[in-house]
C-alpha cells in the first residue's frame, strides 16, 4: 500500500531518508565491486611473488 504524505516535511523526511540509506548501500557496494574487479590481478601478483 502506498504511503500517504500529509506535509512536505513528511515527504522530504521519507525520500531523503531513503536516499541516504541507498547511498550507504551504494558506498559499500562500490568497495565490494572494486574488490571483485581487481581480485584476479591480486591473485596474479601473489603468484608472481
Amino acid at each position, binding site marked *: 500500500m*502506498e504511503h500517504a504524505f500529509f506535509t512536505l516535511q513528511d*515527504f522530504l523526511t*521519507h*525520500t*531523503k531518508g*531513503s*536516499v541516504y540509506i*541507498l*547511498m550507504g548501500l*551504494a558506498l559499500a*557496494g*562500490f568497495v565490494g*565491486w*572494486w574488490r*571483485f*574487479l581487481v*581480485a*584476479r590481478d591480486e591473485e596474479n601478483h601473489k603468484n608472481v611473488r
Partner: protein
Amino acid sequence: MSTETNKTSLITPFNVIAFVICSVGLYLTVLRFTGGLAAVSNLTDYNPWGLWIGFDLLCGVALAAGGYVTSSAVYLFGLKKYHGAVRPAILTAFLGYAFVVIALHYDVGRPWRLVYPLFWQQGPTSVLFEIGLCVFLYLSVLFLEFCPAALEWLGLKKLRNLLHSATIALTIMGVVLSTMHQSSLGALYLMAPSKLHPLWYSGYLPVFFFVSSAVAGLSMVIFEGTLSHRWLHHKMDNHYLNEHDNFVFSFARAASWVLLGYFFIKVFGIAADNNWKYLGTPMGSWFLVEMGVFVALPCLLYAIGARERNLALCKWTAALAVLGIVVNRFNVSMVAFNWQLPAAERYFPSWHEVWISIFIVTLLVLTFRFISTRMPIFYTHPDYQDEH
C-alpha cells in the same frame, strides 16, 4: 601494417549498400529542403523533436564522448600506455560532432541561419544556447585535436608541432566543454516535467546524461576499435596492436565501475521523487528492462570480461552498452515523452526520417574509412616514432 596500396575493386557489398543508402539519402535531402519538414517527417506541434534529435543529436553526442574520455585518460591522468587509442577516439568524436551538426540542419532547416544564436541573437539564459555554444566550441577543439594527424599526412611539420604542443590545453578544454553540454542535453528535458514519464524525469537528469556519456564514450572506443580491427587491421602498427587488448580490458573495467555508479544514481533518482509506485506499470516494466538489460547486465558482463580477460565478452558487452545508451536516449526523447497522449497522437518516425538517420551514419562511416586509410590514425607516422 601494410604499406602497399591495395588495388581492389570499388564494387564491394559495402560500397554497393552505401551507394544505395546515399542515393536515396540525397533524394530525401532535396525533398526535405524543398518541401519542408512535413514532406519527410511525422513531426507535429505535440512532438516537435523526433528521431533526428533523439538519435542523431542525443545519441550522436553521447557516443562521441570517447574523445574526451580517452584523451583525458591519456593526457590528464597519465595513462600513456593507451596513447594508441587516442587518435581513433578523437577521429570518431570529431566526425560524430561534425555529423551531429550536419544532422541538425535537417531538423532546424535554413542552414545559413545556424550561426544566428551564436553571433546575432544570443539567448544566454537558455540551456539550448549553452549546448549550441559548447558544441560549436568543442567541435572546434576536436578539429584542432584531429589536425596533427592530417598535418603529418600533408607533411606540414611546423604547424603540426605547434598544434601538438597545445594538446594538454585542448584536452582540458575538451573535458570542460563536454562536462557542460553532455549534462545540458539532459537539462533540456527539465523544462518538460509534465510531459516526460516520472521514471525518466528527475532533477538529476543532467547528472544521468553526463555519467551515461562517460559509459558511452568508453564503450564506443571499444566498439569502434573492434570494428576497426575487423576492417582496418592492415592499417594498424605493432604498437597499436600490442596495447589493444590491455586497453580494452582497462576500459571495460572503467565502464563497469561507471555503470555501477550510473545504476545507483538512477535508483537515487527514483527514491528522491518517491516514484517506486510507477515500477509496477507497463512503462515501469520497460524502465526495468532498460535498467536490467542495458545497465546492470553490461556492468556485470564488463566486470566478468575484464576480470577473466575475456576479450570477446568485453567487445560484445561494448555493443550492448552502446545499444543501451541509444535505448536510454530514445526513451527520454520519444518513448517516455508525451507518454500520456493517446496512441493516435504519439510520435512514430516516418521511413524518410529513419533513412536520413541511416544516411548520416553511412556518411560518417565512409568519412572515417577515407581518413583512417590515408592518415596516421592507427599507426605512428614514421617521422614521429620517438615522441611516445
